[in-house]
């Protein structure tokens, strides 16, 4: 099965220069106290070495977790009636924080594409600000949307809720042993089933459309993509999230991204405002940056 024609067509676009902004960035933990007033963080529920569990004995992933999409990393200065405040939003949950996340699989910096797709991916990446579906408010899909904002873990299914500028979506993940739906339509977030491997919740998702990217930098895929997401609790009560992408059509081998460590966060989930990107026609060059 070939990737989406629109994605293939972009391979003809001239390669341009990457901006420095494509590199991952991360903020210092020291700023976390500063933004505590708006971050709404909760105290980790588990003492070191002990994690919450449901009555059936599995780790309890339920709860609200930090928003996982890149946002601007500057400060906001506000003056109200003479009172000056400066705020900074911590995004460490989004980025690679450490190679030493307990329980994480080994990861690779980039996916390994088959030779016939490498030029295409390179061109997509170089022209990202013009061709990335996410830039134009389309769905990021699985696993690019990242970790869920809220998890509701029930005996027979687990529900993921997300906040995303393309629309606040959900995934309902059966855990009662049923197979994938036979007649589901392909979608950006796919058809998921879940199971436990010891204390790790493993979500296997298939049945994708082929017009999303599974990551930054032009990571296109076919509709044969299969995504394995692993979620587990760290001893200090954070959520760990790591995704592996398999695509026998375009990749030479499965690609596992780095593990993210996501603190709890009780900020209310708000409906995302409509997404109306109107800047495409104004672009003067290909400067771009990481978003998700």
């Amino acid at each position, binding site marked *: 099965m070939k990737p989406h024609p629109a994605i293939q067509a972009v391979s003809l676009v001239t390669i341009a220069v990457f901006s420095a902004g494509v590199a991952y960035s991360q903020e*210092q933990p020291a700023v976390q106290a500063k*933004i505590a007033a708006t971050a709404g963080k909760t105290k980790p529920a588990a003492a070191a070495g002990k994690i919450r569990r449901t009555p059936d004995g599995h780790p309890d992933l339920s709860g609200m977790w930090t928003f996982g999409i890149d946002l601007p990393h500057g400060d906001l200065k506000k*003056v*109200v009636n003479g009172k000056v405040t400066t705020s900074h939003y911590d995004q460490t949950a989004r980025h690679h924080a450490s190679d030493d996340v307990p329980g994480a699989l080994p990861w690779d910096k980039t996916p390994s594409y088959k030779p016939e797709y490498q030029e295409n991916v390179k061109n997509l990446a170089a022209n990202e600000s013009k061709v990335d579906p996410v830039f134009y408010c389309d769905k990021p899909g699985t696993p690019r949307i990242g970790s869920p904002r809220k998890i509701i873990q029930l005996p027979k299914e687990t529900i993921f809720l997300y906040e995303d500028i393309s629309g606040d979506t959900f995934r309902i993940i059966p855990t009662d042993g049923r197979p994938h739906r036979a007649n589901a339509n392909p979608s950006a977030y796919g058809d998921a089933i879940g199971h436990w491997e010891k204390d790790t919740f493993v979500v296997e998702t298939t049945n994708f459309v082929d017009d999303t990217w599974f990551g930054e930098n032009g990571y296109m895929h076919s509709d044969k993509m299969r995504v394995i997401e692993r979620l587990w609790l760290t001893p200090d009560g954070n959520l760990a999230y790591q995704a592996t992408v398999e695509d026998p059509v375009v990749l030479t081998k499965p690609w596992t991204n780095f593990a993210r460590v996501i603190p709890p966060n009780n900020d209310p989930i708000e409906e995302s405002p409509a997404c109306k990107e109107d800047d495409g026609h*104004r672009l003067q060059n290909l400067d771009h*940056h990481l978003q998700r």
Partner: protein
Amino acid sequence: MKNRIFTVLLGMGILVPAASLIAHHSPSAIFDMKNKVSLKGTVTKVDWVNPHIVVYMDAKTDDGKVENWKFESNPPRWFTKVGVNRADFAAAIGQTVTVEFVKAVDGSKYGYLQKIAFPNGNLIALEDSSVKDEIRP
């Protein structure tokens, strides 16, 4: 320059990297990042939309002609996370405020809003990060 746009003095510092993220294009793909300007006018509308909020403002030129300006800024989620809601911007509707922004390279009356100063002294401003952001592979 006929309208009341003033180039902000260099002492204000170089452009705010706060404006350099989200929405996937960098502001430098659209805006003249080295040319930060200031403009006084009346805010007419605030659109709390992704991926950038949009603020509309009418500003008079020296000869009395009203120009309609449109500014984008950081995404709603970012503003919410740092404690600014739509109401904070909407408070400017109908008021004469001073904004600072960088202009679109294409010459249109379009800019990336970085500061809005209210007549009562209140202020909302994007600033350089006080935190050193690490670059990760």
